[in-house]
């Protein structure tokens, strides 16, 4: 477990922030922290990297309690509102951060990371003249400068164009290949869907769903069947294994929690003497899941 929290809570005078978050992440995972604006994602990450002090609860990075110097040695962080000393050139800024880590002979490393984030050729420009996207890129390079084991990225593509987003995705994949753990804050479902192994969905400061992306998604498989010669008894049987059973456009539609119920249901249909012409199943996208879960959460609130 490279990262673990126990009832971690950070609130501002009893409001906002996040509450009772229990997360554990294995080394080498790309973990997506997904939630609408104001859900508490940034607050969570800032607490993990020691910028905010938790109200209660515990958390460890690499086995060290958060906030300690030891826990900070092997982490990287790209803040949401990235802002760097802009009177330096890109290269000087990298050098400054390398010196903060006491990295010796940092020139090669700086070259490597400037290349990685595609800022080669801009390294001698003042950071103040960088576009927002370039500043986010250099922020990413800085976050990787110390070869961290865990990298926290808070909305890392917020200022990037579509090509930049793909670049960041590639970088995250490479980090994963190198065995690094990536903690990715995002409200962009597609981003999370494409690169994360595990996700947690947070809303109003509470984690409302968590797990392997595969499992979360297969929880909600949507099935359409075209059948004829059926009776009400069959529908009742299906309703026991599925939910949201309905007729739509001449098709029987329902959802199952477990994919393995699909062949089971097909067998029931065939055994009942009804005719099965067509069966489609569709795993719901993260978006469906997100809207479903967050939507239900809103209803409760």
């Amino acid at each position, binding site marked *: 477990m490279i990262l673990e929290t126990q009832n971690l809570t950070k609130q*501002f005078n009893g409001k906002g922030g996040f509450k009772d978050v229990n997360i554990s992440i294995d080394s080498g995972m790309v973990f997506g922290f997904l939630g609408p604006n104001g859900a508490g994602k940034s607050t969570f990450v*800032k607490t993990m*990297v*020691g*910028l*905010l*002090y938790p109200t209660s609860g515990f958390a460890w990075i690499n086995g060290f309690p958060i906030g300690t*110097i*030891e826990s*900070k*040695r092997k*982490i990287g*962080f790209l*803040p949401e*509102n*990235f*802002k*760097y*000393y802009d*009177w330096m050139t890109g290269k000087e800024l990298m050098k*400054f*951060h390398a*010196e*903060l*880590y006491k990295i010796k002979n940092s020139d090669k490393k700086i070259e490597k990371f400037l290349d990685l984030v595609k800022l080669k050729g801009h390294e001698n420009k003042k950071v103040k003249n960088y576009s927002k996207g370039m500043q986010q890129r250099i*922020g990413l390079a*800085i976050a990787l400068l*110390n070869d961290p084991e865990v990298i926290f990225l808070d909305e890392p593509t917020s200022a990037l164009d579509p090509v930049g987003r793909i670049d960041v995705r590639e970088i995250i994949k490479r980090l994963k290949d190198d065995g690094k753990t990536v903690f990715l804050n995002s409200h962009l479902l597609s981003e999370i869907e494409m690169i994360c192994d595990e996700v947690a969905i947070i809303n109003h400061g509470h984690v409302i769903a968590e797990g392997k992306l595969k499992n979360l998604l297969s929880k909600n498989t949507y099935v359409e069947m075209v059948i004829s010669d059926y009776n009400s008894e069959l529908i009742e049987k299906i309703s026991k294994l599925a939910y949201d059973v309905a007729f739509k456009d001449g098709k029987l539609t329902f959802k199952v929690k477990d994919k393995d119920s699909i062949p089971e249901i097909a067998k029931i249909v065939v055994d009942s003497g009804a005719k099965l012409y067509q069966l489609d199943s569709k795993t719901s996208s993260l978006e469906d899941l997100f809207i479903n879960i967050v939507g239900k959460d809103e209803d409760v609130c």
Partner: protein
Amino acid sequence: MLTITKYTIKEMIKKRAFLLIAILTVGYLFIYGYGLSLAFHNNNQVINNTPNIAKILLESQLLSAGLYFSNFIIAFLIVLTSVGAVSGDVESGAIYALLYKPLKRHEYVLGKFIGLSIIITVYSTLLFLSVIGLNIAFGTKVYLGLGNVFRALFFFDLGPVVLLSLVVASSSIMSTVNTGVLAVMTYGIAMIGGILEQMGSFFTDATSQGLSNVGIITSLILPTDVIFRKMNAELLTQNTGLSFLAQGPFGGTSQPSPAMFVYIAFYICFLLYYGTRKFEKRDL
């Protein structure tokens, strides 16, 4: 910590109107020097006929005034350049990328303080030596021994460092704007307190005592003025015991006690300790 110090100095040189300050300082010294040359080489009969001791008093007054306003300029520059030392990074968000690193927060604050102290001390030393140099160059009759000058220099540089410790501590706790207000107001209070204390020497008994108490209280709040007077005394008191201390607002008739200097050392340490401690516990 030293990295922060190094880059604080770099930032000052690159960003904060370094050249402008240098040019305007030369302008200031030029005008002061011009004034001295007129005053010292006046052939007016009245002045030429006055006894030497009166001339020395006049000239020491000019010297003190030069140092007083130099000190004032330095204080201004400290406020302008250092109010955002910490709060500026907090307000811009640049602090995030620094303090998630294995860098202790107090190292960051102290690194800034040391960097700023170095710059301010260099500037203040240059200004002090220029003023003294101009006085000597124009043939002041005030005797300026090397020992006097160096002891005075120490105190001349100490004042700005004291003010800086207040500014940096406040910047670690409060916003840039509030730090600016606090620094200017406390500096003003220290100044008026010092003047009132000087005035005390013109009165007798109760009034004098009351004014002196005001001075003591304000110098506890911010001891810059009391340090300036000590500087003046060091500069103008001769080994022989003869003192050319002038009276008036720039002078140093009433001198600070040794206890005051123990307090000043404590003052700097306490402010830095308190500021860093508050900063350590702060949510960023």
